[in-house]
């Protein structure tokens, strides 16, 4: 059952409210712009689709459109970030942190500049545009940076909180957003703490831990609900912060279940599942199944069709959970 302590939306299984995580980002920037004169926003010719157009209208002196030039955007932001500003750079994740990766590494991360990288249109959810625009490696290439914060909000409300929260630290952040409207799972009352993983689905006697990141959390919750009906009890963890990773909550869950399945719209190589696996192999080696892209790019298509074809659907999660359980008990 949904964790009552987290004030989650009870309607998510029947009539979920839909909103894109990028909208949460845009709203948070607007609020931050009003509150903090040091907030600056940059884009590389993607103001509307990364939802920074309202910020641009309201704070034109603190908004910079760099044109189609992601390296320049990154390093300009780095200059702003070492000069007392808090710079949010907004582009598609394929281009930033993809195309401008080394620029970010040197001028933002190594330089320790106060820059927040907003990677939009991440994952195969970017659908019809095809693999050129579906960032499925961005978690891998940012979480390997020393002391980087890597956040993947589960819904628009968490996206708002994650964006707002990132302004309170001088550390560089990577925050990942998706294009489509997705179910709003949390509410304004749901606690948000990047150092604390929340258990969204609880059971009396969980047999498998399901860890999901980003909008995939919704698919994980549907799977957990269906599995419950079949008599399989699980716990579902919302991994919205991949770095820092709250090790204790994961260890606490897998110490009960001894089986873990990780769900992400990303390559399984180097993603959230890998991050948890690296930790567990040091502290408590655990049987693990990885759901995500398996050594392949996806293709153009309707989001729902892609999610089914590439094995990310609730049905697929259910099947893989059952298989995992068999392995555990076998």
């Amino acid at each position: 059952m949904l964790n009552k302590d987290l004030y989650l939306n009870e309607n998510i299984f029947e009539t979920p409210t839909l909103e894109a995580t990028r909208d949460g980002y845009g709203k948070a920037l607007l609020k931050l712009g009003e509150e903090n004169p040091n907030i600056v926003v940059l884009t590389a010719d993607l103001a509307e689709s990364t939802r920074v157009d309202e910020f641009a209208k309201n704070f034109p002196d603190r908004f910079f459109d760099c044109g189609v030039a992601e390296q320049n955007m990154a390093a300009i932001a780095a200059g702003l970030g070492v000069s007392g500003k808090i710079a949010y750079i907004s582009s598609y994740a394929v281009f930033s942190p993809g195309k401008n990766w080394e620029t970010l590494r040197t001028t933002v991360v190594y330089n320790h500049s106060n820059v927040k990288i907003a990677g939009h249109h991440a994952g195969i959810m970017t659908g019809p545009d095809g693999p050129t625009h579906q960032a499925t490696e961005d978690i891998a290439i940012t979480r390997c940076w020393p002391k980087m914060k890597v956040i993947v909000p589960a819904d628009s409300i968490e996206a708002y909180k994650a964006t707002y929260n990132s302004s309170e630290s001088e550390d560089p952040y990577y925050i990942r957003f998706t294009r489509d409207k997705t179910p709003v799972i949390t509410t304004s009352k749901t606690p948000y703490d990047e150092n604390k993983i929340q258990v969204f689905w609880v059971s009396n006697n969980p047999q498998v831990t399901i860890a999901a990141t980003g909008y995939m959390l919704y698919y994980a919750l549907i799977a957990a609900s269906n599995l419950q009906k079949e008599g399989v009890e699980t716990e579902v963890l919302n991994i919205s912060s991949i770095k820092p990773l709250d090790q204790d909550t994961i260890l606490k869950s897998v110490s009960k279940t001894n089986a873990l399945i990780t769900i992400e719209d990303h390559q399984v190589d180097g993603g959230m599942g890998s991050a948890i696996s690296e930790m567990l192999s040091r502290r408590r080696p655990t049987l693990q199944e990885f759901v995500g892209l398996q050594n392949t790019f996806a293709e153009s298509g309707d989001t729902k069709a892609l999610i089914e074809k590439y094995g990310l659907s609730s049905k697929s999660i259910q099947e893989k959970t059952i298989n995992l359980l068999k392995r555990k008990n076998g």
Partner: protein
Amino acid sequence: MIERIDSDQIRILNEKANKIRELIIEMLLTAGSGHSAGPLGMADIFTAFYFHILNQDPKNPDMKDRDRLILSNGHICPVRYATMALRGYFDISELQTLRKINSRLQGHPHRTSLPGVETSSGPLGEGLSQGIGIALAAKIDKAKYQVYVIASDGEHQEGNIWEAVMFAGKMKLNNLTLVIDRNNIQIDGFTEDVMPLEPIVDKYKSFNWHVIEVDGHNIEAFINAINEAKSIFEKPTVIIAHTIPGKGVDFMEKDYLWHGSPPNKEQAREALKELRTLGNKIISEHQ
């Protein structure tokens, strides 16, 4: 405006530049790796910046309204370190730690390691963009400091530079001055053989920049160019400083093979002899 300098000051600054060249040779010899030609070629300009142009305080390197000097081509950092040490940012003896473990003097500059270093650099083509960001922050804050960026000629082969040149032209950033070390060499050879940059003056003009060309070894002319840049309000200014790579050490001058190599013991002895005698014009006390 920056004060003009008289002949006495010119003489003093030239002596400082010569001393900086000696320090560069000494530190590269100890380090056993690093770049020789670029640092030697830029000793006069770094002297002009740190001993006359920049509004900075070596004892308070984070001073809020300090002028910012951004080094884009981080590989010539020995000249920055040597100049900063001579100016009093840290003890000259620390120069011997260049490129060694536990040193603040990283092989390429690291902002958070050494106070007074404004950005981390090494990978080319990124300094102008960072200078733009700092200049934009100054505009937002209505701060009066000036942002100077030093870039190499070879790094103009990086696309990022032209993204930044386009942006600065669009924004009419008059608090930003770019100095290009036009020494015509890069690792693989002469710039015009590897990938021609000319006509570089026309290129900058077409991007809506004000362009000044200057002899990069004439400190007085360079200071005048900085003043001219300050008087231009409607656009950013680029000063193309023509320099001789390896300047001051005869066997290194104009030879691209010295771009990325340090001197060995014998070569360092030879170089220091030349520098300490001002090219055999004076008899060194060491002789």
